[in-house]
């Protein structure tokens, strides 16, 4: 639950626009710096790893509404610049299949990219500290830490949007103010049909505490799960192809599953 599954038209307009601006700038920079050398090799690699993230996201752990993201693993494999691009691509595809709003692609990209960058930095730092001897455990710890930090970032964003909603700056259009008004603070979502005596039903404010409790409770199960999975995969990969995890290309190119020799 480290990316926002909040519908379109709920978060404050300024937050949505600002996040799009930051995301597009980051993607532009990443496209520039990431695409300076060996683009022909990077395009298919990016496509494959972003697709792998999507494949992992397509299977949910139903009771806690959590799906595996493989963000930290992908961050480790792609490095910082390509991670930003992969986060953007994954969110565009997810939004187009109804998994997350289109207007929150910017915010979701920032969330997932932070997860990948943090995971990459933590893994690289800790792995070097342990001299590459505990790569699997290090990957697990890096994943849990990265997810915990980005979940806190998520709660911060929701808190920011909640207070903004009080300031009548939310996503739904308020014709009386002539701008996008407060969906969660009453007034815009009014009801004179069910309560004829009051044209505006006073609505409760967003409870950040309740949201945080929910996210940390359900999310922590997901962090541990994702930590174990990432640790197991990194352990497996560092045994069979250590170069992939340590940032070196494999020296021997293997025979493909269809029997195509390289």
């Amino acid at each position, binding site marked *: 639950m480290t990316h926002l599954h909040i519908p379109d038209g709920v978060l404050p307009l300024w937050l949505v626009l600002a996040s799009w601006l930051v995301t597009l700038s980051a993607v532009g920079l990443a496209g520039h710096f990431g*695409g300076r050398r060996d683009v*022909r090799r990077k395009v298919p690699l*990016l496509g494959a790893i972003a697709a792998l993230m999507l494949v992992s996201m397509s299977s949910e752990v139903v009771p806690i509404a959590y799906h595996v993201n493989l963000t930290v693993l992908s961050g480790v494999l792609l490095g910082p610049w390509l991670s930003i691009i992969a986060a953007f691509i994954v969110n565009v595809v997810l939004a187009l299949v109804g998994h997350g709003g289109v207007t929150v692609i910017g915010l979701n990209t920032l969330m997932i990219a932070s997860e990948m960058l943090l995971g990459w930095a933590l893994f690289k730092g800790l792995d070097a500290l342990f001299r590459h001897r505990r790569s699997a455990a290090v990957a697990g710890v890096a994943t849990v830490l990265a997810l915990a930090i980005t979940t806190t970032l998520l709660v911060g964003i929701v808190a920011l949007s909640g207070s903004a909603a009080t300031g009548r700056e939310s996503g739904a259009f308020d014709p009386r103010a002539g701008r996008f008004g407060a*969906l969660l603070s009453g007034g815009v979502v009014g009801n004179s049909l069910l309560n004829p005596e009051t044209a505006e039903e006073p609505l409760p404010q967003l409870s950040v505490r309740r949201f945080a409790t929910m996210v940390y409770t359900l999310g922590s199960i997901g962090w541990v799960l994702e930590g174990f999975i990432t640790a197991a995969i990194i352990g497996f990969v560092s045994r069979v192809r250590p170069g992939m995890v340590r940032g070196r290309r494999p020296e021997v190119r293997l025979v493909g599953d269809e029997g195509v020799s390289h």
Partner: protein
Amino acid sequence: MDISSVDTSATLGSSALHRVHPVAKLIAFVLALAGVVASSNVLVLAAVALALAAVVVAMRLPLRQVFGLAAYPALFAALFAFAASAGPITAAVLMLKAVTAALTALTLMFTTPYPYVFAPLQRVLPSLVGDALLMTYRSFFLLLEKLQRVTRAARLRAGLVGRQPIRSARAATLALGTTMLYAFDMSERTYDVMTLRGYEQRLHVSMPASVSRSADVLTVAAGGALFATCLAWQLAAPVLVSLAWIPAAAATGLLVAVIIVRRLS
């Protein structure tokens, strides 16, 4: 989240909406989505959702997959509504916004092959990003199929029968790891192919010619009508009034009529 059905429908479908020019569908999608964003009237949002459902039924799109995917974001909207201590109407608005926006996107994706949806984006994005976007969607289906095969093989090799959570999780993780190695090898193979074909930092997607100009105009007009209805209703009656049932009733009538016609034909 069964995304593979999206591509099957978009590629093999032959409905009237499949034949509409992708750019017209993209414009209609943006307009309908803007209507959903602008509206906060629960009954108007319900009307848009019902109207889109009528389109899905009329175009004979795979109902279980479309509505299954569209319902998925409602779960998270419900969690958000719960966290927001929202009343029943606000909760319904949040959930309907999520479902309707998803239905809008899914109607586009189920009727348009992905290169045509991503082509306009690819033209404005840096080449590395735009090309990788196209490559991602192509790779997704290959990897999904690979993961399913490897998972089945891992389960058979581990002798898994019925529910054995720990051993199943181990087999699933091994399958994911193997799929990741396959993804790496696949990217190397694609690199070889791209080198042979003389890739020069930009994949070219040619858009199809328009089949029927009037169908394109009609599609854009339908998107515009949804947007205009949402905005006009928001301006005229921002709160639920006694006439608010009209758009929802009209959309319900449309849906019922479409279902009857489909049953009879």
